[in-house]
């Protein structure tokens, strides 16, 4: 696990960013599925509260970017990372991430000053959701380097997409429930969509990290790393399963802020451990 602890800033970045961004997928579902907008028309203060709290996932992504800065030897030149656009997978990741941040912040500011009409809201929140998914995929793709055989697999983006959907989903529910809005959207397709999204997210996360581990197990040179990562892998997967339960229970039973908050905490820890496993599996095809 040595290499994992050397990459703590990157593990923090990939965890916080994918979870924060993913919250916008659930927010988009809430506003697109109709029932929320309709029921909130009668209680604008609830809508206002959702909008205010939407800063939580945005701050998570921001904290992720700040954590990534600690990884750099010259953080004050960080903007140079945009030079490789289209060529360097790392630049592409940063660009998509920044695009997400810009759209999410515009959405948040315009919503807060009360200038966001229902139509514009739907469009902006959907763009943010699409960018969130793209961001998650690009974070994973940036690790698909041909000379690093344990990372160079589609499992890398699949796992991050899973974290984004499952974990981000929980943070989205947190925002909605903290504004006491979940009970208003119990009707309509929102529930079914969110449950499916959490299931798909959990499946992708577990298949992603498990598949990555299996790929690494097949590589003789990685045998030390593989053996050391085993207990961490099990811990991460167990946490993801628990988080899935904590995401679904408030949707099929009574919405509860406590359960959702616990789910957020569990998913944060299990994704972080999953990321540590990922970095721990690092080897190159050479020396």
């Amino acid at each position, binding site marked *: 696990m040595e290499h994992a602890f050397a990459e703590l800033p990157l593990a923090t970045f990939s965890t916080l960013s994918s979870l924060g961004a993913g919250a916008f997928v659930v927010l988009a579902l809430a506003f697109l599925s109709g029932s929320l907008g309709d029921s909130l028309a009668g209680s604008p203060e609830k809508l206002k509260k959702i909008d205010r709290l939407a800063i939580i996932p945005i701050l998570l992504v921001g904290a992720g970017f700040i954590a990534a800065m600690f*990884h*750099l*030897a*010259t*953080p004050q*030149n*960080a903007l*140079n*990372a*945009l*030079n*490789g656009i289209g*060529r*360097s*997978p*790392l*630049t592409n990741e*940063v660009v998509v991430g920044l695009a997400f941040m810009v759209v999410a912040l515009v959405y948040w500011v315009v919503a807060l000053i009360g200038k966001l009409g229902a139509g514009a809201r739907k469009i902006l929140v959907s763009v943010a959701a699409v960018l969130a998914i793209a961001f998650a995929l690009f974070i994973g793709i940036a690790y698909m*380097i*041909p*000379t*690093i055989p344990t990372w160079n697999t589609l499992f890398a983006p699949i796992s991050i997409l899973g974290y984004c959907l499952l974990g981000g989903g929980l943070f989205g529910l947190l925002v909605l429930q903290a504004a006491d809005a979940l009970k208003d959207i119990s009707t309509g397709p929102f529930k079914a969509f969110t449950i499916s999204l959490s299931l798909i997210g959990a499946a992708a996360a577990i298949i992603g990290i498990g598949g990555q581990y299996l790929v690494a197990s097949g590589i*003789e040179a990685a045998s030390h790393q593989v053996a050391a990562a085993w207990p961490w892998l099990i811990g991460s997967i167990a946490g993801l399963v628990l988080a899935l339960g904590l995401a679904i229970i408030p949707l099929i039973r009574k919405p509860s802020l406590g359960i959702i908050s616990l789910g957020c905490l569990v998913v944060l820890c299990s994704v972080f451990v999953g990321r540590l496993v990922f970095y721990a599996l*690092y080897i*190159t*095809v*050479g*020396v």
Partner: protein
Amino acid sequence: MSIYGFYFDGTRCTACKTCVYACKDKNDLNLGFAYRRVFEYTGGDTTRDGAGAISSDCFTYSVSVSCNHCDNAVCIEVCPTAAMHRDPQTGLICVDSSVCIGCGYCALSCPYRAPKVDRAKGHSVKCDGCNDLIKDDKAPVCILACPTRALGFGKISELQAKGEQVNIAPLPEKDYTLPNMYIKPSKDARPVGTDNAFIANPLEVL
């Protein structure tokens, strides 16, 4: 495309590491940094057969490696800042230290472990093929320092006539980056991916 490359004669190298220290001296490198490293690769078994006769296939050989100024340079591909670049005049791969942010992607991806982030300097560092000397029509210091003349440097077409593209253990399969290092392997040289052998001086080279 690369114009120059290194030559290494495995039948001459004694693993004395004069090349390593000549390079450290020229580049004023601190503890923990060496642009050229000599891998000591050791393996094999000594066994006793039924009749009590002992036989051994143990071997050890050394390979001196810096940056191979690869044709398919993964370090350039991954670098987000374009700090890692090919000098347009010499084709040698250099780090523009004013642009590099020290993200370490080059260090992660190079299978020869040539680049390394120097956090004190704030950027990635590695062998630049003594780019300054080459532009003056001189040879790299490691080549001049080698007491057994095991190391060489020159135009790739000349090197190709002298040896084969490096493809021996413990280095990676050459097709990943197309290294511009041509070698005359020693008799004991083993193919890439050999098991039952190891790098005997990991603290010195990794």
